[in-house]
């Protein structure tokens, strides 16, 4: 009879714990997820490394040295060099800044758009709601990568003409990646609206004459925060992968900006004699994404007891 299950309420009496605030309770649950805590430390270390690493490891990222081409890791170059003799540690640290910055910025865009669309849909209801939800579903079924490639292909030159190459591509990539990832958040926020709109405390606040904006800011959005934070963590990971994919396809940042994906793109034709060149940026992406995913899992345990699976 192993594995037989019965949803028996008698088996689990209500547990009595000392009353604590919701955030302490969330933190207690998050701490129970050991891998999430470890991942938090790893991610923090990675962020610190790319933030202050370039200051400590003051090797230039673009110093070409043909005498030191494709070197294996050594004391002079802890992660080796590429085909132009450029130091890979310096390039990975610098590239990490961009990858992480894109990840978080695109997440911010996604949350912003998602909260906006979700709030408007949830508050307006009726035809507006239906239209916005149709749009949300539509965006969920868009072929994202081809469109991403198409948009960047079409708009890159104009935007770089306006604000310069690096900034232009950064804005474009962040906007486009974020613009394709807001749907989950919009659904969550709207669902929160629908379930809370009729709840007593919101009714009470409305009866007391609270304005709509105030109602949303003070009473509804904070309640949607948990699931949104979980979705946000997943968005960061997805955005980092999206940016790396673009760079890996040679269509992201310009060649002289060493993002992790770009390093892999350059390395892939030298796999047979310089595997380290591809390994280190690949491992960097993997570690970052893995730790963010685990943190997201821990946050889900902590903040979103309903366990909504987000794709």
């Amino acid at each position: 009879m192993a594995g037989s299950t019965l949803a028996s309420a008698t088996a689990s009496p209500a547990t009595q714990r000392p009353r604590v605030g919701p955030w302490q309770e969330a933190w207690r649950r998050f701490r129970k997820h050991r891998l999430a805590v470890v991942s938090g430390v790893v991610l923090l270390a990675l962020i610190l490394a790319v933030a202050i690493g370039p200051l400590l490891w003051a090797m230039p990222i673009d110093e070409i040295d043909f005498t030191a081409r494709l070197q294996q890791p050594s004391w002079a170059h802890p992660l080796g060099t590429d085909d132009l003799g450029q130091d890979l540690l310096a390039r990975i640290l610098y590239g990490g800044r961009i990858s992480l910055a894109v990840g978080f910025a695109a997440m911010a865009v996604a949350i912003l758009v998602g909260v906006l669309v979700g709030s408007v849909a949830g508050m307006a209801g009726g035809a507006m709601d239906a239209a916005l939800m149709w749009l949300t579903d539509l965006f969920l079924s868009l072929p994202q990568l081809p469109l991403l490639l198409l948009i960047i292909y079409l708009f890159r030159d104009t935007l770089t003409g306006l604000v310069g190459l690096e900034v232009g591509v950064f804005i474009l990539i962040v906007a486009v990646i974020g613009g394709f990832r807001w749907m989950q958040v919009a659904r969550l926020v709207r669902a929160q609206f629908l379930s809370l709109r009729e709840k007593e405390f919101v009714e009470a606040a409305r009866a007391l004459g609270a304005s709509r904006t105030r109602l949303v800011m003070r009473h509804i959005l904070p309640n949607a925060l948990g699931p949104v934070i979980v979705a946000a963590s997943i968005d960061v990971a997805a955005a980092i992968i999206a940016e790396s994919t673009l760079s890996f396809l040679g269509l992201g940042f310009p060649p002289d900006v060493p993002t992790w994906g770009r390093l892999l793109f350059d390395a892939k034709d030298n796999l047979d004699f310089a595997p380290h060149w591809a390994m280190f940026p690949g491992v960097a992406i993997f570690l970052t994404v893995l730790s963010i995913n685990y943190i997201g899992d821990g946050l889900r345990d902590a903040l979103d007891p309903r366990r909504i699976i987000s794709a």
Partner: protein
Amino acid sequence: MSASTTDPLLSIRDLRVHFATDDGMVRAVDGVSIDVGRGETVCVVGESGCGKTVTAMTVLKLIAMPPGRIAGGQILWQGRDLVPLKSDAMRSIRAKEIAIVFQEPMTSLNPVYTVGEQIAEVVRQQEKLGRRAAMDRAIEMLRLVHIPNAQRRAHDYPHQFSGGMRQRVMIAMALSCNPKLLIADEPTTALDVTIQAQILDLLAEMKERLGMAVMLITHAMGVVAEVAQRVVVMYAGKVVEEAPVRELFANPRHPYTQGLIRSIPRIDLAATHHHRLEAIPGTVPSLLNPPVGCRFAARCRYVTDACRAAEPPLREVAPGHKMACIL
């Protein structure tokens, strides 16, 4: 214990069921003994959380193990202990010898199969009938429990039935292999009051026709008075009183039983939740750390120091009437 001349059909002896939880071991059933004779209707009555559902589930070994565990005792089915039985042997008992009907007709049927398929599935499993014959039996069973247009309705899905109709389907399914014992675990609790009476009538009718024994789990004393031959009163994982139904209602000895009987509304026999809860103050104690002594002491109006010192044993106070109170 079984002083009767013939062996009982089912004899639960000193059963102990424990559940491991985050906060410790919950002794959901703590030394329960219940006998059910052939063709007899026994009601097990008590508040939610007193261990009656766990007892019923354990008879068919349907509790989750882990976290659940049979920590002791025997479940004698026609003299044979079910506790050490392997799952294969246990399966041939289920539905064929002992069938069960659950509390929630809305969720107890699988939404993706037609009710006919679900009944036929039992028949095919237990009686090795072919697909056709099993479906014919299913339709016949649906007819037996008074589902109109059974032939056609057999091909409908559970969501196309009302709650009461679904409970009829559950009963049809449970009875389809002619079990010797039907365990009905609060079969009417989730239904409207008018439907409740219909289902109880149906159970009585089925019992009359098919002659099986019934072990009815309920928290409503009104139901007990209507259908039981013998009554077992459970409180906090233990049996506190057991007697033939007339004797119990005429002469309730345990203060808890007295409280339960007082809680029956005078006019409407189908007692509702609220009346009963108001009648006996307080709630069932936690089974995590049960109090020493009588478990009812905290809610008992006749409580003495002796009640809190030691647990009163179940003793026979009249022929066939046992109770666990020092009074």
